[in-house]
């Protein structure tokens, strides 16, 4: 494995500076965003690297639990922040956190215990990267699914209410919309699976190969991860869309768009 030093990373960082310079020259209004995103990325990853080093050395379930919890809450917050019209109050973050907790934690623990079987089962070298990959992908699915749901209900509220007026139940009134939301949430995962290996080499596999792992072993891990991502994203998105749908109708099955926050 070729080790990277500060000089190598500084050279790579020149690309960020170059992008910012280009954005400035073209008056894109993105210069500050590019520089902030680049700096933020470096600081976040360095901090994570330090934290992971400590956690990897200690192999302590409490510490791993705390890190997993922080990752989950941040993912819940990010999934809410990416929605234009989100549920008011704690519902938006709450639904995201619950959906991701149920799907990603279940899949991660099952994978650790049943498939990978490290000793102890929570070995952070396996547990944290697995959870991170699942959270990242499920977060996108949940955010896209919920964003599509609230936007579509907002735009099509008259059609939904027309169905309610005709005696449709709330479930019947949102059947088509719910299907669309699930599709929206799963498209990135479906695209990634369809393109895997042909259009793009997935990030984790690329990382393993760069770190010196044999390609066939890296591929096996990538297949495992892709299957886990599909399962967690489908479960998480379905849960989030279902609960948010229910929340947007009250006990008398009235469409309650007043429970959405204005963008």
């Amino acid at each position, binding site marked *: 494995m070729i080790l990277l030093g500060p000089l190598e990373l500084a050279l790579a960082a020149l690309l960020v500076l170059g992008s910012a310079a280009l954005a400035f020259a073209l008056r894109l209004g993105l210069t500050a965003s590019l520089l902030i995103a680049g700096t933020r990325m470096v600081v976040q990853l360095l901090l994570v690297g330090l934290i992971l080093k400590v956690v990897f050395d200690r192999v302590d379930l409490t510490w791993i639990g705390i890190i997993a919890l922080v990752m989950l809450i941040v993912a819940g917050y990010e999934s809410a922040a990416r929605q234009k019209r989100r549920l008011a109050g704690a519902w938006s973050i709450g639904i995201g956190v619950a959906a991701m907790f149920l799907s990603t934690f279940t899949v991660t623990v099952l994978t650790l215990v049943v498939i990978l079987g490290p000793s102890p089962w929570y070995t952070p070298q396996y547990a944290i990267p697995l959870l991170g990959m699942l959270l990242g992908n499920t977060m996108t699915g949940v955010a896209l699914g919920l964003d599509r749901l609230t936007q579509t209900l907002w735009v*099509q509220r*008259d*059609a939904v*209410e*027309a*169905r*309610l*007026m*005709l*005696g*449709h*139940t709330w479930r019947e009134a949102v059947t*088509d919309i719910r299907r669309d939301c699930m599709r929206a949430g799963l498209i990135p995962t479906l695209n990634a699976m369809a393109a895997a290996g042909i259009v793009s080499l997935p990030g984790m596999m690329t990382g393993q190969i760069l770190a010196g792992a044999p390609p066939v072993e890296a591929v096996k891990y990538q297949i495992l991860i892709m299957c886990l991502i599909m399962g967690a994203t489908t479960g998480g998105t379905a849960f989030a869309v279902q609960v948010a749908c229910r929340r947007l109708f*009250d006990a*008398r*099955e*009235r*469409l309650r768009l007043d429970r959405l926050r204005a963008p």
Partner: protein
Amino acid sequence: MTEARQLDVEGLRFGGVGPVDLWLAPRECLALGGPSGAGKSRLLRAIADLDVHEGRVACQGTTAEALEPSEWRRRVGMLAADSRWWRDRVDEHFAAPPAGEMLEALALDEALLRAPVAKLSSGERQRFALLRLLANHPRVLLLDEPTANLDPDNALRVEHLIADYRRSEGAAVLWVSHDPQQMRRVADRRLRLEGGRLVQAPDTEPIGDAPR
């Protein structure tokens, strides 16, 4: 005799309107006028249990809360001023195609049933929306300016079809309109909603929004 009433509304309040009390006998048509923004459409929505409200609403003695919301809305059917559609073709919105005589009564060509909704005029869509509602055999019809998008001939066809439906099914009708002539043609009683209250509409005064 509350049980003999087709629709019974007591102490209905919603969004600064009310309390509203009204009742409809079987086969009765009550026309409701009043200035724009007075809350006429919201009153219909509250009766159909589409908006949050306080008060008691009953159909043939059964309150809304005693029924599943979907069952209540099948009994107390509402037609909005603008019809809405969610599938591509007209017939996809009907469990069974409407009877030929119903189509004929509204001068609708049967071939239009297989047409895309987007190809229909707003008037055709509104007439199909009425047939879609009547297919549920509601016992109370809440009509929110049902003929606002129709030419005079088609407006008369709709009025006749609803009169026939009232007679044959014993249904009661609450009809919101801005057209005083129409209200006199269709209604047994006429009320105005203004200042958040229902008031009698005197025969000598316009009951709709028409210029005085």
